[in-house]
């Protein structure tokens, strides 16, 4: 549905934003594992033209960053506005890491200005749209993972 909407500049990735929310709420090990699995799922996308495993690498790195900064991230569920800002920044950073790794692997991903505008647009749309879905994502995660946490 998101891809049907012709956003100005470009759209945003609902999946990446959701994954960032999940990674921020997980513990150390969970961030790494969910990051790897989430990245693998992105690699299975039919429109992905990048090497299989690239998104898995990016999301594993993001999971690691969440892991080492767990104490400073704290519990953002009590500060939703800060949480949204944090998720938007994390989404943008994951896209930036993806572009850097793609460049190192010799891929043609486009010019600098185009990529920066895509990442910037993704950040803005994540900031605007994720507040609508954040409570739902947190509730779904709680419902799915309650037994494990217990």
């Amino acid at each position, binding site marked *: *549905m998101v*891809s*049907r*909407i*012709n*956003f*100005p500049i*470009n*759209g*945003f*990735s609902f*999946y*990446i934003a959701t994954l960032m929310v999940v990674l921020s709420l997980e513990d*150390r*090990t969970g961030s*790494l*594992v969910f*990051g*790897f699995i989430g*990245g693998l799922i*992105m*690699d*299975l*996308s*039919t*429109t*992905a*033209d*990048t*090497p*299989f*495993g*690239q998104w*898995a*690498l990016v999301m*594993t*790195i993001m*999971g*690691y960053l969440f*892991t080492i900064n767990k104490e400073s991230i704290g519990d953002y569920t009590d500060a939703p506005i800060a949480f949204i800002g944090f998720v938007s920044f994390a989404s943008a950073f994951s*896209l930036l890491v*993806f*572009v850097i790794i*793609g460049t190192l*692997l010799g891929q*043609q*991903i*486009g*010019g600098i200005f*185009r*990529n920066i505008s*895509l990442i910037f*647009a*993704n950040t803005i749309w994540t900031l605007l749209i994720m507040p609508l879905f954040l409570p739902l994502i947190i509730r779904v995660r709680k419902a799915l993972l309650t037994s494990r946490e217990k």
Partner: protein
Amino acid sequence: MARGGGNRSRLLLVLLLVSSLFLITLDLRGVNLAGSIRGSVATVFSPVETLFSRLFSPIGNFAGDIRNIGQANEKIDDLNKEIQLLKSKEILDEDTVGQLNQLKNILDLAGRGGYKVVAAKVINRGSSATFKETITIDVGSSSGISRNMTVISDGGLVGVVKSVSSDTSVVLLMNDPSFKMGVRIAGTQSIGVLSGQGGNSYLLQLLDTTGEIKLGDKLVARGSDGGRPFVPGVPVGTVVEVQSNSSSITQNADVTASANLDRIALVAVVVSPPKFDPRDSLIPKPNPTVTVYVTPSPTPAPSN
């Protein structure tokens, strides 16, 4: 305990990083791990994509109309007239009428060019997260589609088929930064390379040192061997700015595409190239203008 937990996290991190790098290395070495899985995923999700496309295309159209709100008044007047006309004939929704017109134009272009085509609907657009400009269409190998087939719309070239599953195909759009094709300036033998740049502007590099690019020049596809990936004669774009640089070996120009890639709903995949190169016959001809010459009649001299 904390140290044990930290060691375990580090070990897990190293394991996952090595796994990711291993997968990337295998893929770059040509071991196609994901090909069959992506094909299966595409087959499984194609009915879902088609359903979502039907359900949510009004949302996409609404978002587009918000962006063009300044032109809405004129469009509203046109639509009101069309509604009255449709009410007097049959009840057809605006979306269907628009798509029928688009399909008619596509088939007209294909017919004039001698292309054998399979019409398709766009059911998905590539995610911005992949930094690729792609669309997904609702025809696949079961309809005779295979990789490296040209995709056209009523305006001209759209892209080339990148991957195929049984019921869907992914098309790489011509504005993707990795897209390059050979083009010819209509009316001349000058050939060049057209490159996508990710937006609505394209770069033309003329390979012919004796040729000249002029503002308003129309570009057509030069064609490939066997018509794969590009069939000859498809309108590609128009030159809007010529970049003159005396120190440059090649001549460059900015081009806009003939097809509107932002709002395509229907396309056609060329499954069989034409027997003869249509050359410039598919370039839309400008509407003829009438020129009126007036010769003033001499004023009679006053008689005394």
